[in-house]
């Protein structure tokens, strides 16, 4: 028996291995139209129309920007985009690069507007509607710089945090808000204009709900370490729909934790576009500009 054992020992230790991964084919989602929109200071609406694409396609970039050839495949320039509402029925002007514009129409608060899109090249169509929500206004915007230090091996490392104090009056009903920070200039030099197709380089965004708000005025302190002395900062407050708030939160939650990425269930993002993806939003941002001195 010892012979068997001696013979088997090296075989045992040398034979361990792991199988090669097995490929699997997974049917891809059909291509659909993707909508995005923005009110232009309540003097018009800009709508962007694009197409969804295969999960196995990597978004090609040139530096930080999505490659134009790839954009040409995605952006839809052959669509008929119609905006309808109590004071408008307009086929939007095709600006190319997937943008469609209505200019000179003041959209009315608390009214519902509908958007119909038909792409003659693909035969795809989508429909969306949204309400123009009442505008939220800042009561106050203030800031301070706060120094933080960490003592590490007799060396003190210092960092400066930018604290933003905001307050605004909560509007009636259940409301959802979004606040965006923009660094307009750094050390007195204007920031270069951002390319609209820069990939994954968003500015800080914060969301709020008034569900837990006890008073009528919303106070909050936001900390951000990307702002330095002398920077000019833009702050935009928007009153957004519940669906868009849930979309933003889903986005934050799915990427907020390594555990969520490894073990959590995938998140399917909400959309208010019937038959497509994205969001048809019509909200007025209130803006303030501060020079952080």
């Amino acid at each position, binding site marked *: 028996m010892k012979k068997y054992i001696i013979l088997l020992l090296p075989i045992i230790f040398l034979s361990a291995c792991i199988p090669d991964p097995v490929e*699997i084919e997974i049917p891809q*989602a059909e291509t659909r139209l993707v909508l995005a929109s923005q009110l232009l200071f309540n003097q018009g609406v800009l709508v962007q129309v694009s197409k969804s694409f295969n999960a196995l396609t990597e978004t090609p970039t040139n530096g930080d920007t999505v490659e134009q050839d790839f954009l040409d495949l995605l952006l839809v320039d052959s669509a008929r985009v119609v905006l309808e509402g109590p004071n408008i029925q307009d086929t939007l002007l095709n600006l190319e690069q997937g943008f469609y514009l209505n200019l000179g129409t003041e959209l009315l608060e608390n009214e519902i507007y509908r958007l119909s899109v038909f792409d003659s090249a693909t035969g795809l169509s989508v429909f969306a509607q949204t309400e123009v929500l009442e505008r939220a206004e800042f009561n106050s915007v203030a800031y301070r710089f706060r120094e933080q230090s960490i003592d590490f091996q007799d060396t003190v490392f210092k960092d400066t945090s930018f604290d933003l104090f905001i307050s605004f009056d909560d509007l009636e009903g259940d409301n959802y808000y979004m606040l965006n920070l*923009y660094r307009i200039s750094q050390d007195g030099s204007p920031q270069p204009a951002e390319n609209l197709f820069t*990939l*994954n380089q968003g*500015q800080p*965004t914060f969301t709020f709900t008034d569900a837990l708000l006890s008073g009528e005025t919303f106070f909050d302190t936001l900390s951000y370490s990307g702002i330095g002395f002398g920077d000019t900062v833009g702050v935009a407050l928007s009153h957004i729909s519940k669906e868009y708030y849930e979309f933003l939160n*889903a986005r934050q939650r799915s990427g907020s934790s390594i555990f969520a990425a490894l073990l959590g269930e995938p998140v399917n993002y909400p959309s208010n576009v019937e038959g497509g993806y994205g969001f048809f939003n019509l909200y007025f941002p209130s803006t303030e500009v501060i020079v952080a001195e």
Partner: protein
Amino acid sequence: MKTRLHSLLLLLLWSSSGLWAQNFTISGHVQDAESGEALLGSAVMVLPGKKGVYTNNYGFFSLTLPKGKYQLLSSFIGYETDTQTVILDQNRPLEIKLKAVGTQVEEVVISAAKEAYANEVKSPQMSSINLQMKNLKLVPTIGGEVDIMKVIQLLPGVTKGGEGTTSILVRGGDPDQNLILLDEAVVYNVSHLFGFFSVFNPDALKDLTIIKGGFPGQYGGRLSSVLDINMNEGNLKSYHVKGGIGLLSSRLTVEGPIVKEKASFSLSGRRTYIDQVLGLINVPVPYYFYDVNAKANVKLGDKDRIFWSAYLGDDVLYTPDLEDQGDPNDTSGVGDLNAGFGFRLGNLTSTLRWNHLFSERLFSNTSLIFNRFKYDITGNVLNNSIFIGSSVLDLSLKSDFGFYRNPEQTIRFGGQYIRHRFRPNVISAQGDISQIIENSEVNNIFADEIAIYGQYDWQMTENLKIAGGLRISGAVVPKRVYASPEPRFSAVYTLDDKNSFKAGYALMRQYLHLVSSSTVALPTDLWYPVTADVKPQTAHQVAASYTHHFEKINSLLTVESYYKWMYNLTEYREGANLILNNNFESELLQGDGRSYGFELLLKRDEGRINGWIGYTLSFSQRFFEELNEGKPFWAKYDRRHDLSVVTIWKATDQISISAVYTYLSGARFTPQVGQYLTPNPSLTGVETIPIFAERNSTRLTAANRVDLNLVFANKPRKKFRSEWHFSCYNLLNSPTPIRVNLTFDPERGYVYEQPSFLGRLPSIAWNFEF
């Protein structure tokens, strides 16, 4: 006249006393002749006709019969059948000692198994499988030591979570719906090494029973299964030592009498030692786990017996202080981080049991049970440190009674009270980090569970036996009291000695759930009670089966079908973050589910060639309003086909060969099937948004696997017995997909690939016993 009256009274008295006194009781225990250990579930039958009873969880039986002369036949799988004649003219105690049979006496083995199978055909208990540890030790394993959770995964109706893990999912249920009892104490966490090993040291165990449906009244608190595991009591007659040395761990068990024939003990320990071995050559593997099982019992006269058993096991991860691991020439001190990380998680259980015979026919057991599961995570860097701890602790009192009225009727009743204390997410941070991480206070949450039950087993006719019962359970949690009746019913109709039909119904309720979104055992998994808003999970299950005893091949076939409706199941919101989340209730969703399926088990427990074939066809769906757009979706571990073939061939007295073949449909997952670009919220660029398919709409590829085990034993009849185990897990290195990755191929771009967790994994172990 006076004399006549006296004579008449005497006659009446005699006849009436005779009417009552004609019934006498034979009661006692069935035990292993060599060790004195109780044999649970062995049959004691009266010949001819074979009406009789089965021993309870302590090996006790009681037969009340009219005065007369009887032949009693006692049988148990793996033991020689015992037949003895009893003259019943008074209540008689009887201790039945069965001799274990060896493979060399094939005819005796077959005969014993035949009796056992004939009894199983007649038992109303369905959806239940009993496994004796001594029969499992040849099943191929990882590391040369049998893992009972992985053996259970080979049974029909039971599937596993991920490949290589010890989690079990029974009849379409969830991982937290299994009541796992070790000597009646709940084991909350059955895993070591993130689920790779189970906490059960095989040398410390005697047998186990898994019940998947037709639940008897004494069990409750989980929806899908009961896994009742019994530890060795300890040899009452002589001292024995057994153990094993494997690649990953070693184990040692000592057992023997404290007072011969009256008191005994069993003490087992197991520890991984790869940290110690590689530490000798300065390769740090800062992880180990250990288990300690202890049990003792003492007979206090003829009517009382006390058992005490305990289990302690921990997983320990510790990073050594990094202070001395930097570059020795570096004088900057930058490498001196004073950093460390570690966790310790594990179970502690203790059970004190008192068997008492109120009479020959009324048996009772009262248990005082303590169990605790906790995890502690610690970390430190520089002058900062953090401690995170969670625990669940139960104290339980349980009493069970069995009244053996006659061979046709048994009444069981009892009750249980459990006091739970949950202490979730205690966080304590020191140093600068405390400015960022908020300390949380020790917040105890108490919950009380109460249950009473009664069950009546009745042989109604020669062919029909029923077991009907009612369990009333309840839970008291802050701001809410829950209570519910749980009816149980099962019946067997025997066509003849070889064929029977069985049917059963059970309503089960569950007042605890696991806060986890994964079947991987994480140190942060925590149990939590129902609350005023989170309702108890409930399941109705019906099952029907047909059992056939193939006498010629000494095998038992069971085909069974079930349908289960489940309510208030728990899932978590998409993207929920459960790690250190004290407000996880806001992430929890409740919905319904249903599962149904068909199971087949053909087993042969004894003989030179034995094993089983198990096949399951199953379907499991979920309905949650807030998931999958409110549409029904398949459960994650809805595995359509599950086939296991386990074969053990005792080729000679010294050589055994065993093999396992499994075919398992892949688990389900939600793939990304598209994407789109959309402006980011600040409108300063675009971001990519993934598009996922419907929840759990796609399957991983099915897996085939062959495991092999060769055992070379020394010559039998030697006092020192030793065995070499050469095992190979996944002999053919077949793919066993565990997830889907998006992988970039330079020629074809991105492709979906399914990596495997384990491939061919050989191991060697040496086991001994004397």
